[in-house]
């Protein structure tokens, strides 16, 4: 195995990685979706087990339903602890969205 082969391997991998990351960065800039800023925070506050027990596809699904008002009970989530559910409830009731409305949710 000549050293030039190893060099080509490294160079090609780097080149492909750089091209792909540029494509992804550009795509992220132009294909960004404006979403409710509270949704990401609620997703992080949920246990992130992605078990599907709540009936929504993954934890981000439940967060989306809570933030848009389609789901009122935080304890649809089978995995969440009481304190964390209380934290989410307080967060949603005190933080307004872009129009200044807060959400009323129950445990």
């Amino acid at each position, binding site marked *: 195995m000549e050293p030039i082969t190893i060099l*080509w391997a490294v160079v*090609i*991998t780097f080149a*492909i*990685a750089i091209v*792909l990351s540029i494509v992804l960065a550009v795509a992220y800039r132009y*294909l960004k979706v404006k979403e409710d800023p509270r949704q990401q925070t609620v997703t992080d506050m949920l246990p992130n087990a*992605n078990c599907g027990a709540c009936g929504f596809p993954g934890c981000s699904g439940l967060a989306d339903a809570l933030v848009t008002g389609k789901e009122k009970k935080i304890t649809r989530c089978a995995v969440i602890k009481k304190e964390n559910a209380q934290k989410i409830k307080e967060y949603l009731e005190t933080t307004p969205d872009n129009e200044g409305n807060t959400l009323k949710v129950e445990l």
Partner: protein
Amino acid sequence: MVAFYTALLSSMIVSNSVLAGYKGLCSYLGISKKSSSAFGMGVALTFVCFFSGLICWGLGFLLRELEIYDFMFTIVSILVISSLVQFTELVIKKFFPSLYKTLGIYLPLITTNCVVLGLALQVGAYTDASSFPEVLATVLGVPLGYFIVIMLFSCIQERLETSNTKYNFKGAAIGLVATAIMAIAVYGLGGVI
């Protein structure tokens, strides 16, 4: 033209990626609880397979020129596939938000779908540049075959959910037995095409 249709039908049905190639079983069993999510998964997978198959076929030629094909092809294909899946996720989130919500975490999971990498490895082995119709047919046929099987299986699963399976065979176990029966059908078509 005949070669194109032969390759298309053979990769779609006879060498079906799930039933005859045993690939893509994780998402096959996981996503097919509802036919709407199975439909979305099939569409997303077709998109990813088509582009990654063609790109990996091209990269195969480049790697063979530089004599690094034998040990670099897996790593390079997986880089291409994971970036393409990220790109697909961004596109779906922007243009089809309801589909994005249906798929949930199964969209990033296409990266670990054996169908896509299996297709890339299979297509990378074509050394002749004039085999493009065959490559195109394979790259379209494999995800369409997976799509057909996953739709059928999701309908079967919806029916199995409400039936009275005993002895803890519910869920995946009886689904796999149903898959075995489907595999008999595909096996029987083996010599036709």
